[in-house]
């Protein structure tokens, strides 16, 4: 398995690296740094202001603050429900689409992007209108809807993962060695998708830990709703809590992507960075032209 992948990388990495004449890179550098500097200022200053507003003490007070525990526990429970369901639903679906229905990938992309553009406030009022009473009574309904909301990010990251290695060859090899579909999925496809699955997980958790609209209209005090409810009487603690959540999520994502690309370097294979694949375009075009 590793040999197949590394042979492919050896094939593809050379043209990718030889991409740009060195002279041009230097000329680009100036505006590149200018753009990134502006971005750093725009995204950094509000963060800095928030940190200053919260103050150091607030960070130590977050855990143990009134009702923080129960709100955070509820959010974690919803995150667990949403993550498990997302993976169980999206991993086999995206693998299947990749192998059997490659022509419908564009259609899948359009379907899975819908939750970004459909207003959550519209979706939740429809859900509350249509869902059976026994579901509305529990916060689990939110968990079920978060699966829908996480689809755009989960599907894209899984799709990028599937494009980063030659699924078809590995699956055919596994099948011809006598492995059935469940074995192939569990022991061949999923290990290769590890980075993508972890990114999808973290993005789903991040979404659940930040989703306010649906939770507030459904009248459950999740972590984001708690932040709003307690912002009035303790602003600094609320800000500290949300900054903490933001930072931990980012740290996790960074860890996954770093470890993922390190193992990609070691075992060969393209690098996956959340939604995009490093070195894969060249090999695909070559495959098509042959």
């Amino acid at each position, binding site marked *: 398995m590793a040999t197949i992948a590394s042979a492919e990388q050896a094939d593809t990495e050379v043209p990718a690296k030889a991409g740009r004449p060195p002279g041009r890179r230097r000329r680009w550098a100036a505006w*590149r740094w200018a753009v990134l500097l502006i971005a750093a200022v725009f995204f950094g200053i509000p963060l800095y202001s928030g940190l200053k507003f919260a103050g150091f003490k607030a960070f130590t007070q977050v855990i143990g603050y009134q009702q923080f525990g129960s709100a955070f526990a509820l959010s974690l429970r919803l995150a667990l429900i949403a993550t498990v369901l997302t993976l169980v639903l999206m991993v086999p679906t995206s693998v299947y689409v990749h192998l059997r229905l490659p022509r419908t990938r*564009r259609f899948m992309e359009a379907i899975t992007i819908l939750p970004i553009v459909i207003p959550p406030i519209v979706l939740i009022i429809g859900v509350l209108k249509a869902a059976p009473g026994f579901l509305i009574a529990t916060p689990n309904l939110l968990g079920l809807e978060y699966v829908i909301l996480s689809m755009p990010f989960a599907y894209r990251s899984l799709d990028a993962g599937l494009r980063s290695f030659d699924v078809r060859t590995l699956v055919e090899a596994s099948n011809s060695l006598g492995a059935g579909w469940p074995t192939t999925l569990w022991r061949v496809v999923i290990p290769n998708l590890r980075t993508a699955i972890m990114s999808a997980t973290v993005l789903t958790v991040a979404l659940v830990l930040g989703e306010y609209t649906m939770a507030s209209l459904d009248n459950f005090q999740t972590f984001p709703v708690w932040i709003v409810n307690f912002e009035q009487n303790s602003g600094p603690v609320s800000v500290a809590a949300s900054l903490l959540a933001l930072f931990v999520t980012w740290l996790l*994502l960074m860890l996954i992507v770093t470890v993922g690309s390190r193992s990609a370097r070691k075992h060969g294979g393209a690098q996956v960075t959340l939604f995009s694949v490093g070195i894969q375009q060249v090999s695909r075009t070559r495959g098509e032209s042959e």
Partner: protein
Amino acid sequence: MADSMTEVAVPEAGASGTRPGRFSVLLRAGLRWVGVLPFGVYVALGLAVPTIAIAIGAFQNSSTGAATISNIDTAVHGTYLTGLETSLELSAITAIAGGIFGLFIAYAIQTAKRGTVLRRIVITLSGVFANFGGVPLAILFIAALSTTGVVTGWIADVFNGFDIWNHGFTLYDLRGVAIVYMYFQVPLMVLVILPALEGLRPAWREAAHNMGAGTWHYWRYVGGPVLFPSFLGCLLLLFGSGLSAYATAEALTGGTIALTPIQIGSLLNGNVLAGQQNLGYALGLIMIAIIAIVMILYTLLQRRAARWLR
């Protein structure tokens, strides 16, 4: 695109030739879709059914349940029309400005060396910030740009006590909300445009370069035309994302800015007169109709983009 045409045409030709073949072809085609059935059912239940419920509710009288178009009528007049216009304006501004800024950031890290720490940081931060919003985001900007904010103070220090709030700046109107929206629109653009940028092959650039094209000519005749449909498609996504945002504007302005999602929220929260939730459904239906148009355009643009990318 030509490939997909031939693939569709082939089984049909075979089926019309031999009669028993048709059934097995149909059966096989049907079986191929079984694999996406669980996904399809989930999306139908979680996305389609709620949408249909809203569509039905939009045409019902709140108290009697009788069929009526008065909800829709109210939704396209007066304050609700203003709200819709403001929403569209806000979404368009943040989509275009955020889209251009996001494109530059994405291109900057795309042309940087692959797998560098910088690239990883920008992409992971984009993943986190694209999901950031609501009260926490509003508070960050209030801490930075309100009358007593950090940045307001800096500007006053540097320019001899110049107070931007006395010179027409406010965080709580359309422009203020637009600035705050950029905080999730720009990262979203970085994430969605990156795959398209990666589709631009270095070989094209080299070929253009070898034929004597400079940077401007490359972008005017090669890179630009290839990228343009994807770019427009991503702008449409940002437009939809801006249209659907609720929590941030609500938190920032306390619901005082007239945006359709906020109006829906207040109708459904019972802050306005009771028995008006069907008006909320009607507003929701109008938003869905706008989103439907946006998505049709998006799909067409994606198809156009696929001619060269991937």
